[in-house]
């Protein structure tokens, strides 16, 4: 059982997201992470889903997804060279003085951006793979993470290869 990243091209129509997520819950598959947005093709959206299962389960998920009329193409890109990113916004305690300096230094090391500074907190924005964000979050916990917001993971294949729209 390992995480699989599925790239799902769908018609940009009302209800398509609930068709996709409904299928996962109905058939007992868990979604680890999900991200959805418009893509390069007009009228289509791309959903990136990370889910965990053995090969047979993943194959079944993909076949069931393919049966949805509004799903145009499903690809498991886990076996391919790819770039994956997610974004996190972290509001962390940082009283002016030495704590604030430490937090800013950590941010610097992780190439996180400081996007807001308050009297007692600052907000960091960080993009990267899951492990990097996990690591940053862990480091910041000691100062007190007030709020953490993470997007789902998105992914593209490296090089010229693309996830095409032909089903």
């Amino acid at each position: 059982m390992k995480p699989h990243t599925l790239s799902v091209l769908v018609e940009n129509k009302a209800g398509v997201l609930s068709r996709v997520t409904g299928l996962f819950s109905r058939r007992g598959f868990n979604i680890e992470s999900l991200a959805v947005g418009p893509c390069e093709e007009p009228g289509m959206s791309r959903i990136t889903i990370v889910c965990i299962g053995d090969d047979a389960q993943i194959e079944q998920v993909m076949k069931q997804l393919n049966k949805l009329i509004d799903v145009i193409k499903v690809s498991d890109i886990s076996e391919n060279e790819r770039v994956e990113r997610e974004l996190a916004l972290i509001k962390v305690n940082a009283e002016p003085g030495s704590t604030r300096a430490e937090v800013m230094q950590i941010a610097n090391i992780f190439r996180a951006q400081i996007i807001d500074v308050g009297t007692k907190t600052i907000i960091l924005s960080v993009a990267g793979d899951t492990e990097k964000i996990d690591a940053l979050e862990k480091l910041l916990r000691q100062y007190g993470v007030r709020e953490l917001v993470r997007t789902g993971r998105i992914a593209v294949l490296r090089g010229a290869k693309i996830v095409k729209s032909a089903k």
Partner: protein
Amino acid sequence: MKTGAKILIEGLQREGVETIFGYPGGVVLPIYDELYDSPLQHILVRHEQAAAHAADGYARASGRVGVCLATSGPGACNLVTGIATAYMDSIPVVALTGQVPTSLLGNDAFQESDITGITMPVTKHNYLVKKTEDLGHIVREAFYIAGTGRQGPVLVDLPKDVTTREIEYEFPENEPVVLRGYQPTYRGHARQVDKAVEMIAEAERPLIYAGGGVISSNASSDLVSLAETLMIPITTTLMGLGAIPCTHPLNLGMLGMHGTRYANYAVTESDLLIAIGVRFDDRVTGNVQTFAPNARIIHIDIDPAEIGKNKKVDVPIVGDVGAVLSDLLAKVRKKQNDNWMERIRVWKERHPMKFRDDDVLRPQFIIRELSNLLLPDDVIVSEVGQNQMWTAQYYCFRKPRTWITSGGLGTMGYGFPAAMGVHFACPDRTVFDIAGDGSFQMNIQELGTVAQYNIPVKVAILNNRFLGMVRQWQELFYDRRYSFTELPPVDFVRIAQAYGVDGIKVESCEEVRPALQAAIDCDGPFVLDFRIEREENVFPMVPAGAAINEMIGGDTE
């Protein structure tokens, strides 16, 4: 200018619809007004569930898309069981529902329910039409999706303002529906077909396991030709009965939980299982680990998701069953399997299907009598429970689409309304619903419909005053503790008469044949109330979770 309702009716006619089953209400008034002087035949049922089952029965008997119509909220919700029934058995149905006006959507308006949300898991696809401009192409897509690929129900939800608004609209002529997310595979992959041909040539104990996919693909004659060319016996699922004539020497009858002993033994002993239009359902396989333990498996199905879902297979062939069978037929060479056929002959001889044939009124006897009286084209519909299994075991089906039953969902109350639908698909044939007293009471109100339109459906109630199948499980596995399965006696003949339908009560074996004949001869609906032996069981039976060769009963008497 045309209203949405007019576009809808025109769209239905262009799809070749002649009959629809429905029930009116507030938000569908514009549609009903359009129906009032349209050439479409509308049958007013007594409960929307019956409309869905009737559309389904119509589809199963004719092979064409069945249509039902209901109002929003309660009307739409009442369709759900019928839609789910069609979905589980891959039956092409288009369900039309009214909806509150678009301006009120999401407001918990009077009789609003989110029917597209509710039916998402039990439809092949569904639509909420937001603009009158979209209505025409959505109707075309709905029929296209329902009736192609792996067939199934499609629901179209129609807000009232969408059906009342007037627009300029013309249906496109000769323009095929194209959906980029929906392109079923019809032709099997040539290399896979070749592999199958090789495997068949190598097999010594081959067996065909055929299901509903053969019926929906209209591939029965190709199936039988293949079996005859290769001398391969055929066992069918509940849904596949009729794909091969029961009298055919290669026919082994049904397999699985209430299958014949010889079919289940053959599966267990075979070295090659050719699975055609089936889905390895648990009622067929029993313990799936021990199902066909000695066999390599070829699986032919139009739905790629069925391949490998429940059982690993050696050669998958995705495609329309009929297309793949004709490819196979063109490539296979004649073969004999004498030793294997001889083993099967011995099993058949040692373990025939039999029941105690005495002067007690037993359901199997009634079904055998009916089977002898009806013509090969006549249609048998069933309810769910023992009545269904006895019919599957003892009725001799000679043609495809003459056996109509709720397999996947097992919906009690399906049979009677489905039988009404069957009548409209084939008005010249005799249609019998074989019922239990429990199931019949789930849609008994349709006596009103058959009386109103003089729909000549015959209901044969195998009345045991029990929820028989559940009682059987309680007898066998719960120490005869008959918890809430006994039903009080009901005088069904008098109920039928109150609706204006004729009927006879039958209490002895001698009365059976004349009573059945009276029902057949009557040119309207008819109810037969057979007071059968109350604790008769369906045997053989594979207990839940057992291997299918571990059957109990049916071997002794």
